């Protein structure tokens, strides 16, 4: 039997924070102009959880994770704010050798397309061995044995033969397993998965998600998923953070965000899913385009596309309003003075069938 929402909320009260991002601002310089990619985003990551960051392309989900791994492009920098990891402020890191202590060892990352993250000219085994030698200080035969073990752990059968093979001899799903193996060879605390299954078929996708789940339990990993597939989110997430225009506008337990969304953007995003649409009718489509991040944004970034926008949305930026101990959202709709809004019918249906207790509890 799965846990009730109250149990989950209590459990989170006792969890230890592993990473704390506070008021982070990341800027890029592009063609002489300044682009603000992350606008004062704050996020806590708890030990052992799986957190999903969702948002459209360009909302800054990849930039956010790259900023605490020292992987921003050369024209990007952390302008202000802090990222606390094990009592160290990563935002203050300036040198590559500082990042070397974090990247891979503490926080590892896997990318969307396994073909571009593997070296086609080197055997799979030697690529994993490189990570083992660097991070586990093993050499020669011992390193080789460690690679065999990792290969078995990620579900690649016959590791002795597979060790000598090259990436082109692997299928897409198998390649992604190799990428995961390289990340795991570093024995990280946090694993960031940037769209890990987008390039894969549904059947393979299910297998990879299963594998990540198994590894998470085995190594007590904290996993951060970046994805725009809400089906995947529902499958893996303990908590969900929704990003829009460089800010985290809503964050909460998976159940809370799916059955009781508060920010209009989250509501619209859910309503536009074909799974929740009614056949023969138009799907709900979000009008307009995301804001231009070269310009300063006043008020709520989503206001120009929001049919429910209040006057205040165009002037003042909303702070976080607390919905439950684990659920908060940046929208003026939660202010006690705001008018009551009707939930979109698709979400109402979803909630009445599956998540009545979420509202009752808070």
């Amino acid at each position, binding site marked *: 039997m*799965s846990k009730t929402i109250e149990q989950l909320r209590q459990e989170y009260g006792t969890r230890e924070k592993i990473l704390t991002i506070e008021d982070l601002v990341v800027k890029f310089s592009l063609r002489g102009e300044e682009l603000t990619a992350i606008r004062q985003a704050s996020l806590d990551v708890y030990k052992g959880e799986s957190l999903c960051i969702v948002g*459209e*392309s360009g909302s800054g989900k990849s930039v956010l994770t790259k900023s605490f791994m020292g992987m921003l492009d050369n024209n990007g920098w952390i302008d202000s704010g802090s990222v606390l990891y094990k009592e160290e402020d990563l935002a203050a890191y300036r040198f590559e050798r500082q990042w070397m202590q974090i990247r891979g060892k503490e926080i590892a990352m896997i990318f969307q397309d396994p073909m571009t993250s593997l070296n086609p000219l080197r055997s799979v085994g030697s690529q994993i061995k490189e990570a083992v030698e660097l991070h586990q200080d093993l050499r020669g035969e011992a390193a080789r044995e460690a690679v065999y073990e990792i290969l078995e752990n990620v579900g690649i059968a016959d590791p002795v033969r597979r060790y000598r093979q090259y990436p082109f001899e692997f299928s*897409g799903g198998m390649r992604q397993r190799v990428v995961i193996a390289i990340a795991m060879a570093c024995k990280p605390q946090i694993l960031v998965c940037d769209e890990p299954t987008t390039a894969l*078929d*549904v*059947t*393979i*996708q*299910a297998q990879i998600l299963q594998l990540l789940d198994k590894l998470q339990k085995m190594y007590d990993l904290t996993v951060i998923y970046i994805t*725009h*597939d*809400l*089906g*995947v*989110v*529902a*499958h893996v*997430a303990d908590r969900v953070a929704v990003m829009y225009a460089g800010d985290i506008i809503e964050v909460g337990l*998976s*159940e809370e965000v*799916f059955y009781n969304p508060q920010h209009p953007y989250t509501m*619209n*995003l*859910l309503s*536009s*899913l*074909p*799974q*929740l*649409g009614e*056949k023969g009718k*138009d*799907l*709900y*489509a*979000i009008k307009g*385009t995301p804001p231009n991040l070269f310009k300063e944004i006043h008020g709520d970034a989503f206001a120009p596309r929001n049919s429910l926008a209040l006057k205040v949305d165009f002037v003042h930026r909303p702070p976080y309003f607390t919905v439950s101990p684990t659920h908060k959202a940046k929208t003026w709709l939660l202010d006690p003075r705001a008018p009551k809004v009707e939930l979109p019918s698709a979400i109402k249906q*979803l909630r009445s069938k*599956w*998540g009545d207790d979420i509202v009752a509890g808070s």
Partner: protein
Amino acid sequence: MPAPEKLLEVKDLSVHFGRGRKKFVAVHKVNFDIFKGETLGLVGESGSGKTTIGRAIVRINPTTDGQILFKGRCISGRIARELDREVTQKIQMIFQDPMASLNERAKVDYIVSEGLYNTKNYTCEEERKEKVTKALLSVGLLPEFATRFPHEFSGGQRQRIGVARSLVMNPELIIADEPISALDVSIRAQVINLMNQLKKDLGLTYLFIAHDLSVVRFISDRVAVIHLGQIVELADTEELYENPVHPYTKGLLSAIPVPNPRVERKRQIHAYDPSMHKYAENPPKWMEIAPRHFVLANEEEMEGYRQNYNHHAKDAI
């Protein structure tokens, strides 16, 4: 109700690549019809041959065996020049990635009218401009966008340009090869709505190729499931999703993630193992299990499927 008109018939279509020892069978004896005004969804994993079928219909990939009939006339293999021109005009394609399928160096005006230039089916410059304007308006873009370059547009707008350039030819059948796979969730909805709108307004027929089963369910009237070059099941959309018969379809359906955490966490996945079929001694045939619901099976399997199916259908009542 009169029997719907068959716009396209695919009969025993096979497509092979290479020859001799290097031969690769991409599509093996595929049969299906597309009726006028419907959307037929074609789903399968990558490498199953769904794109190859689409490309065979627009005559990009030569067919090895079998026939493709468009409005009763054979359009596969060697055909008359006249017919070839007609087919190029009447069957259009929309591609997957609007970032890759539009010429970066050409203006929208040229991109949209490229087909017109190639077939020269306009009499004067004004008529061409008029056609471009009409196509842009029908996909919800402004006519003044014609003077811009593709990089000035967002992903959703680019895909609209992709749709506009097939509409300008006045097509009857559109082959949409994963038209929304590369788009964001919020933009997906816009393009799906646009395609449905155009279908209603212009009486278009679609062959919708995709691997995302939830999108296919939303947009298609009928769905064909393809596995390793063979169509294993074909039925009306709801029938297929409610009563899947073939084990591969079942496996595929069970693998779709649902955006609902409490349902999703309990979801069971049925793995499909092709070795369960004993087709070596008893080859499969294309059989009808219920009205308009076809499945690929041999007699022995069919018996089992029938029992299961009847059992299931009774439960539903």
